[in-house]
């Protein structure tokens, strides 16, 4: 039975007609010619002219076969060569732009840090809270106040008691409402190194509330920054 359900005896008997024009598969001569390997030794003489024709088809280029080179090169320059250069230029531009961007960020950060440091230093210099050498330097360069060792007169030296400060600073509150022992703790016991002779204490000679505030701020703040100085001997 065949695949279609028909027995073999029912199939028509078709005689096989030989195709004389179809070469056999073992025609190695023609296959060798087609493969470009030349005519084999045992090839028939009728194939010699065919081999020559095929060889002529593969001959060196004639001048008229090379006339389109300029147009092809122009097309190549337009679509391949120039876009390649443009791509390379774009890559370099992006690389350069990225470098500039990274440098800009770094420079900007550094500039901001420098500005903040200088601004803080200038503010500190004008507030007079820098160490002595730095304060003197700021005094010479930017006109900040000169370094002064702040202090108050010792108690009982004849100076009038300063009026109560107006600010709400805790130290001031303590000064205003605390006991005398606390007052002495703030002005004499804790800061004995700031005691100076009256000639060296110009702030103490200021009269009025502003002078008092300056004295108090100088007493409270420089306690952390002031260098230790030995207390002056008591005068007899």
């Amino acid at each position, binding site marked *: 039975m065949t695949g279609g359900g028909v027995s073999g005896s029912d199939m028509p008997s078709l005689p096989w007609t030989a195709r004389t024009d179809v070469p056999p598969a073992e025609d190695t001569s023609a296959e060798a010619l087609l493969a*470009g390997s030349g005519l084999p030794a045992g090839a028939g003489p009728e194939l010699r*002219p065919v081999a020559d*024709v*095929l*060889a002529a*088809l*593969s001959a060196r280029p004639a001048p008229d076969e090379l006339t389109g080179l300029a147009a*092809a090169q122009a097309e*190549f320059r337009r679509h*391949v060569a120039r876009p390649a250069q443009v791509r390379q230029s774009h890559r370099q531009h992006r690389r350069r732009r990225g470098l500039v961007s990274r440098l800009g960020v770094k420079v900007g950060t550094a500039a901001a840090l420098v500005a903040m440091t200088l601004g803080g230093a200038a503010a500190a210099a004008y507030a007079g809270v820098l160490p002595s050498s730095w304060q003197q330097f700021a005094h010479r360069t930017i006109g900040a106040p000169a370094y002064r060792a702040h202090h108050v007169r010792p108690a009982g030296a004849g100076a009038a008691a300063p009026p109560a400060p107006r600010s709400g600073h805790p130290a001031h509150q303590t000064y205003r409402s605390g006991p005398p022992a606390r007052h002495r703790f703030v002005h004499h016991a804790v800061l004995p190194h700031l005691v100076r002779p009256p000639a060296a204490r110009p702030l103490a000679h200021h009269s009025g509330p502003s002078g008092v505030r300056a004295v108090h701020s100088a007493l409270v703040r420089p306690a952390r920054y002031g260098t230790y100085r030995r207390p002056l001997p008591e005068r007899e």
Partner: protein
Amino acid sequence: MPAGICPTWRFCCGHGVLVRILGAVFGEEFPAALAAAQQGSEAAFTRLWLDANPVLLRYLRVIAPEAAEDAAADTWVQVVRGLPRFRGDEAAWRAWLFTTARRRVIDASRRRSRRREEPLDDLPAAGLPVTADAADEAMERLGTQSAITLLARLPRLQAEVILLRVVAGLDTDSVARLVGRSPGAVRVAAHRGLRRLAEILTEAGVTL
């Protein structure tokens, strides 16, 4: 130069004349040349063009004799545009080139049929007026043009297959994919074409 040393030069026509055999010009240098051309080297592209364009023109002069140069130019435009994306060896390069050329010819033929413009010399390849004198001239001086004229007397598929096998250097499977036939059909067409060519030459009384 001995014929066995350089694969691109062989003896021709039984006269000991060295001719350049097209189809495997680059060999091992092809990947480097292709890569350079893809990166924008005009010199490398020129090498590719010089290697392939004569073969391409001979193929087109057989399958589209009325517009071979235009079809070749269109083919190179397409090839140049697709060159940066091409991947493959020299055989793949040639297969791509001739596939593009064949499609250009088919497109041009469709355009002409739509426009109903028939140039006076637009005759089918197999119907080109080839006189007996042409065959004699081809045998006297087997120039390339004469060989192309002789090959154009074959049916188109046979001529095309022979050209792609011999001139372009493609194998049977590549030619089968290119022309859209089975490898067996391609093999049969090639053998029939050679046999027919031998008959034409015999009819012309050519004996070597």
